[in-house]
């Protein structure tokens, strides 16, 4: 069930350039059903900024009723969010959307992320590993300073890093790494900028894949039609990223 809750800020720290890790605590956590879901966060009790910001769930701790977001503080709203301190509260609406179908992976899964698309893959990797699935992580960032969670992913499985400027890992995009890797996985999961998602789909037409999309949002719950995408299926002429997604099977969304 979707809830709106004033959650407690438990921890906030900067973990890479412009990248913050924010953990909050509250009952809403227990509503979370799958990695890849997101929450809609109100960053200030002001009309300016007015709208909520969609942020993915990066890690869930059901016992402590805490979850973690990892986000890039660049615009007005996320900059304000980065000023929240333990003891502050945060108005969170969620969990929203449908996450990654963990149960679809059989033995080995590729998790392919770019930039701020990486965070939801962390909770996904945890759950896949818990289910006994072997995960390989292929993560792309701008540069060395923007890299985060490398060690955490390594703890869960083989991890490859690409940076655009080559300052860390392979130089280039995640696709450069993918070209070199064996195709011995059964399922892939991906989250990142739309061009990356497109490239990943093209690279593995024969594989089962699930992609998480981004769109500018209004309501975040499916009521305003802000976040639509056309689809390849004639019976559904468009989908809403917020409530039908953000995760869709490969080949469905025309982004």
């Amino acid at each position, binding site marked *: *069930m*979707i809830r*709106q809750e004033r959650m407690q800020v438990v921890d906030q720290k900067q973990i890479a350039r412009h990248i913050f890790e924010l953990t909050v605590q509250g009952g809403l956590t227990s509503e979370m059903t799958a990695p890849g879901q997101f929450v809609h966060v*109100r960053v200030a009790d002001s*009309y*300016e*900024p*007015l*709208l*909520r910001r969609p942020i993915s769930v990066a890690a869930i701790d059901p016992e402590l009723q805490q979850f973690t977001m990892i986000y890039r503080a660049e615009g007005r*709203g996320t900059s304000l969010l980065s000023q929240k301190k333990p003891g502050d509260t945060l108005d969170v*609406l969620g969990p929203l959307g449908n996450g990654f179908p963990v149960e679809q992976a059989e033995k080995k899964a590729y998790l392919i992320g770019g930039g701020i698309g990486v965070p939801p893959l962390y909770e996904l990797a945890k759950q896949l590993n818990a289910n006994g699935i072997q995960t390989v992580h292929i993560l792309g960032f701008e540069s060395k300073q923007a890299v985060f969670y490398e060690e955490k992913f390594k703890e869960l499985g083989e991890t490859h890093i690409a940076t655009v400027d080559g300052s860390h890992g392979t130089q280039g995009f995640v696709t450069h790494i993918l070209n070199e890797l064996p195709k011995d996985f059964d399922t892939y999961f991906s989250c990142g900028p739309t061009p990356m998602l497109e490239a990943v789909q093209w690279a593995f037409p024969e594989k089962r894949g699930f992609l998480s999309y981004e*769109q*500018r*949002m*209004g*309501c*975040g*719950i*499916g*009521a*305003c*039609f*802000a*976040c*639509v*995408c*056309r689809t390849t299926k004639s019976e559904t*002429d*468009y989908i809403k990223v917020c*409530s039908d997604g953000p995760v869709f099977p490969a080949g469905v969304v025309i982004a």
Partner: protein
Amino acid sequence: MTNLTVKLPGLNLKNPIMPASGCFGFGKEYAQLYDLSELGAIMIKAATVEMRLGNPTPRVAETASGMLNAIGLQNPGLTKVAGEELPWLERFDVPIIANVAGTTTEDYVEVAREISKAPNVHALEINISCPNVKQGGITFGTDPLVAKELTRAVKNVASVPVYIKLSPNVTDIVSIAKAVEEGGADGITMINTLLGMRLDPKTGRPIIANITGGLSGPAIKPVALRMVYEVRKQTDLPIIGMGGVATVEDAIDFMSAGANAVAVGTANFVNPFVCPEIIAQLPEKLHDLGYESVEELVGRSHRL
């Protein structure tokens, strides 16, 4: 006991608060959050004769205390709205105000005729003010004569009372209000969005794919309130007021200025519980101000 009920043509409202069209879909999403029967009414998303896919994305952009949208009247079309969405809403004890849009007078007439037959549609809201479609929409809302003719045409076929939704993007909103009154309108809803624009700071490109969008939210409240006040001075038609309402105080302001009921749009996105919260706060607020009913409060700014 404070009396929240409001009687308007076609509408016996439990209370004067309702979600505004386009900000509440066809109710399904908010029904996950609370019982829609708590609402005074529901203004559903615009319906057109044929299904519409609307504008390309991005369709929304944030502005200071407001937002722009250019959804472009995306909707599943008359048949599906009347055949699926409206029947689904019948489970709630709440009157529906169906928002009607189109490109030609014939479009409006067809949707109005058909949709007003649905048992839970108690009134129509004729959207002559949508700024986000190339044809129709706002063009009907900026010329008094055209607005009057359209009102008459819709009145001829509608089997429920007809409210005309006015555009704020006009020199003289009172003249449009008077025109639709002459055309036989049963009421007015106002205001739709102000036409605005936001640019990407890096590229200078408009953020909204449609280039311009409709501005809504707290930023426009002063303009909306002024327009309701002016129109109330010049006509006795019932007014459902909207534009930036986010709190019970905002709702009181609109009723003070002369609105008989109040719709809440953008604020639903910020606080999905805003409508039931305002409804819950109204009795005490009215009491504090010394009123025993909503109807006593309406128009108090004009009686000072």
